[in-house]
């Protein structure tokens, strides 16, 4: 159920790569563990994010969770819809619930990410 075309990190976030534009979002597992998402804080268009560093937060009723950039680059688009309707992260984490699009300086930091199959193995392992 985790789309095969995406890359995943251990913080349960995904990266969708289209040329040098990378879309960030949280995985279905992440939204499931967070519960009802009620607040999303995202950077402004034009600001820069750094691979491995937090670029914002996703908050559920009970929890605050940092979101981490998987590439460095400039923010070219922000999903303002999720700021008004954070529940999109619960209902469509891989669709309308995406977070930001980044123009990557360099895609090499994506090499450390997992494929969908690897991510599912990682999830299974985490269950224990």
């Amino acid at each position, binding site marked *: 159920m985790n789309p095969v075309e995406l890359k995943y990190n251990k913080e349960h976030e995904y990266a969708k790569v289209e040329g040098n534009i990378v879309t960030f979002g949280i995985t279905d597992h992440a939204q499931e563990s967070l519960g009802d998402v009620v607040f999303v804080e995202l950077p402004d268009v034009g600001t820069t994010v750094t691979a491995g560093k937090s670029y914002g937060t996703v*908050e559920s*009723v009970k929890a*605050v969770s940092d979101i981490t950039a998987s590439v460095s680059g400039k923010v070219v688009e922000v999903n303002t819809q999720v700021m008004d309707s954070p529940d999109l992260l619960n209902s469509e984490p891989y669709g309308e619930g995406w977070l930001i699009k980044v123009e990557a300086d360099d895609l090499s930091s994506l090499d450390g990410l997992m494929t969908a199959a690897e991510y599912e193995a990682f999830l299974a392992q985490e269950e224990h």
Partner: protein
Amino acid sequence: MNELKRTPLYEEHLVAKAKLIDFGGWEMPVQYAGVIDEHHTVRTKAGLFDVSHMGEIDVRGEEALAFVQMLITNDVSKLEDGKILYSPMCYPNGGIVDDLLVYRYNSQHFFIVVNASNADKDYVWITEQAKKFNVIAENLSEQYAQLALQGPLAETVLQRITNINLSQIKYYSFAHGEIDGVSCLISRTGYTGEDGFEIYVAPEYGRQLWRKILEIGANDGVKPIGLGARDTLRFEARLPLYGNELGAEITPLEAGLGIFVKLDKVDFIGKEVLLAQKEQGIPRKLVGLEMIDRGIARSHYPLQKDGQEIGFITSGSFSPTLNKNIALGLIRADLAIQGEVLDVMIRGKAVKAKIIPSLFYKRDKQAGHSAKESGAMSEKISAK
């Protein structure tokens, strides 16, 4: 790591696919369907909670009345038998040991219900104080499963399976009777801001009642509710939580519980300090906050005014009923003015919030006995 304690209803939570968390050493359901859905269920229909983790301490003896009077800040001397009273219990320095409910059977027998996370500490404290009185305090926490059915439909649903006329149990009163043929203690109390009941039953019957109530309430929309919604529900109704609004470093006067502190009582633990605080001016005050900027204020976030720290957030959340982000904060009393704008420090960033009345949610008063209840309720939660 210590093994987590489980309530007699643990297996039912697994069946209901609850998400379980460590709450004060207990493995408890934080949510079933989702916090927001569960929250609305309680506000509009009725929800069933497992609150078996709560502690119960029985106090009996010739001097039970005098003992409880010394132990707590509220006054049980005027309380009728069969009635319940809410009270803080303080240290000699005025800090709060816990907040609790006292059920009065008679002047020689009281039943005290305390917070789960404080139950062991409370029992030690209570037995220590009891040495000076002719009383026996017994920890009965293991002898009860406790269920809470809360929401506007609670009475209608529960009445179907009990021989007690529930309309006769007034707000903050209790009775003994049978539910589904099982002997129970039932009180019209709760921690949600809604009408409802708390049911104390022998642990071996806990699961039977849990299933029965969910079964007979299913068509009315009754669902199990986790601790997540319990927290948002109590928070909207400004019912304090120990560890958030209350603690050993906070006096009940600061926490806005002044009406539960009877300074005219002959004596009680903490009286001297609380009396002095009242006379000299209460240094801090609990206020309601509404976020002006985007953000959610969480417990322990600092509060600033003009770059100066003036207090901290005690509880903060998205409010499912009001559909906005609100909080409670303990701040310097001189700045506790309606409309005042403060900075909530969220991860180092100043986020603006405005002081608003802290009773965020109050249920509609209805005809009949619930109008009277609301009176008692407003006394309980509108404490300043």
